[in-house]
């Protein structure tokens, strides 16, 4: 269908029933689902992370150290490194693309206003945390995060996520993933301090930095250097890890269909 006709059809749809319903939806959006005030944390700081993909070798040391530091249950991850095999269509050249993922501690985090009991909140230093004593485990935040950064911890039955290792930052230590990164690809710091390494690197590489899913308007505060824009949104990749089940339906392992 040509684009003019499609535009016309779209406008027709908006004019018809849309006129009755859309104002109601926008009124509701304006009043509810706003960010609650930030609380706790040091308001003079704003933590962020810069991931220099040129230094990442996909060793998963960050994944493992985070898992140990934060005692996440097996199979659930606060951070992980996605890996893609990319083939150049003309030359057939193969390359591996590594994409470390974690909570983006967004400036406008969609997971926070949805919480019905304010168990998850954003600290004044920008870190998004969960009060697991208050969390009712409704999993609304898990669905609201576009980055799959949250999960329900099967042991605590509450929402769990990356905290930038706030407990370590407060003790003057680096987060486990940063500490263990072999190539020094993860840089964390206070973006309000102009002399911090992250501030200097953001200044230096401002035009080359990318964030994940910018179209969601969450304003992520984890910046990627050396990023390929085709991986910013959901990648057009083929998932190849297929579960192999035994005759009783139990999982035996994975296989690749290629």
């Amino acid at each position, binding site marked *: 269908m040509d684009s003019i006709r499609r535009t016309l059809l779209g406008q027709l749809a908006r004019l018809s029933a849309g006129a009755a*319903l859309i104002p109601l939806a926008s009124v509701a959006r304006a009043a509810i689902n706003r960010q609650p005030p930030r609380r706790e944390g040091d308001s003079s700081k704003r933590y962020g992370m810069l991931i220099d993909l040129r230094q990442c070798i996909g060793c998963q040391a960050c994944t493992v150290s985070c898992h140990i530091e934060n005692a996440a249950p097996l199979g*659930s991850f606060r951070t992980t490194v996605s890996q893609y095999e990319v083939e150049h269509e003309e030359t057939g050249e193969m390359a591996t693309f590594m994409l470390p993922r974690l909570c983006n501690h967004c400036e406008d985090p*969609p997971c926070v206003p949805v919480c019905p009991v304010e168990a998850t909140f954003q600290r004044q230093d920008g870190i998004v945390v969960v009060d697991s004593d208050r969390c009712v485990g409704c999993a609304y935040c898990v669905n609201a995060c576009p980055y799959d950064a949250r999960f329900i911890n099967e042991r605590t039955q509450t929402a769990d996520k990356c905290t930038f290792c706030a407990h370590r930052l407060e003790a003057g230590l680096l987060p486990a993933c940063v500490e263990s990164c072999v190539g020094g690809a993860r840089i964390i710091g206070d973006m309000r301090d102009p002399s911090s390494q992250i501030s200097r690197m953001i200044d230096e590489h401002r035009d080359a930095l990318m964030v994940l899913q910018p179209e969601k308007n969450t304003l992520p505060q984890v910046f990627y250097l050396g990023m390929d824009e085709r991986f910013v949104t959901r990648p*057009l990749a083929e998932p190849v890890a297929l579960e192999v089940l035994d005759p009783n339906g139990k999982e035996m392992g994975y296989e690749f269909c290629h």
Partner: protein
Amino acid sequence: MNSAIELLAPRYDIAWYPWAVQYFFLIALSYATLWLAAPALVFGKPTWLPTARLALLACLSTTLVAPVALLADLHQPLRFWHFYAYSNTHSWMSVGSLILPLYVVGVVVTAWLAWRPALQANRQAPGFAGLIARWLSLGDSPTPRALLVLVGLGTLVLSTGIMLYTGAEVAIVKARPLWHTGWLPPMFVATGFIAAAGLLMVLNRVSGLHNLSVTRQMLKVMLGACLVAGLVAISWFLDGINAHVGSVVAAMESVRGSAEWRSTALWGGLTGVALLGAVLYLLTRPAAHRPALYAWTWVVGLVALHVGWMFRWVVLMDVQTVARHSAGFHHYGIPAGSSGILGIVGTFGLWLTAILLVELFVPWRQARQGGSVAEASPAPPAATHTAVENTANNIEGAPRHG
């Protein structure tokens, strides 16, 4: 363009379990049946009284069971009091947690007011039924019709709050593009009315009432709801067809990328068209053919219930299997335990129990539009087992069950 293969990505589990489907299904039946009871109970239309009796039974039973399913979907159900200790206005779920209890109380009081004259008439019944009637009717004082109208109107207002919050709660989630559309809340309501009309057709059969006017009214309601649902679906599609991001694009991608989504879309479309066709056929038959044909409308009712339930299953469960930042689709197999099959069967079992308890102890077949004891016909000993006022419309003279 290069081709890429995702070598390594974690498995992401779904966060909302089938309990959520059960809640959305039962609460939709609840508010829709309340509106189907309203013409007679609140607005005093006598031709709708048989429908209102069935609708009230459906409404009360679903309203009592729906919050149980909702509570079960929390991973920490015993912390439900946190909703009130830390309530706030910026979360749709929190807004809903304030509306829902008020609505439940509203429905219970409405049903009690509507059933009270019949309960009072049943006070002399022997055995347990009389005891329950004496206890539940709370004295011989008259039940002012104005009170029923007032409480009924208030509950209708609260029910619009339920429609709004259940829809908005899902539609604001921009992380799941398939949910993030203003067309989702009206579609929830439309499919809710389709399922509710279907439920009353089924109840009309299994309760032995076999009331032709109920069937005809429900066919008309279903026709209206089907047309609204069709209009919403077409508008949603046309609205998004030329966009680059959004709900329709995500749906098209899913349908292109997955055979399961293709068969879901095909099944949904075919069922919807078949249902609309059946309703149109039944409504346009000459009056002489109706009794024989309308005896089978319970089958249409079951299909309508299937449409209402499956829509919620696809929206709430299947959409969670569409990966958000990794490639492809997550695998989801329904577990056998309480977060899966057992939960689904258990919720329906609880619902059946609620219906049977009302059937056993409340003379709902004699429910009136408020009024005093004198208005209600005195119930014979087996009051709950006689369809007094519907014999004129009955096809086979009200055969009994139980």
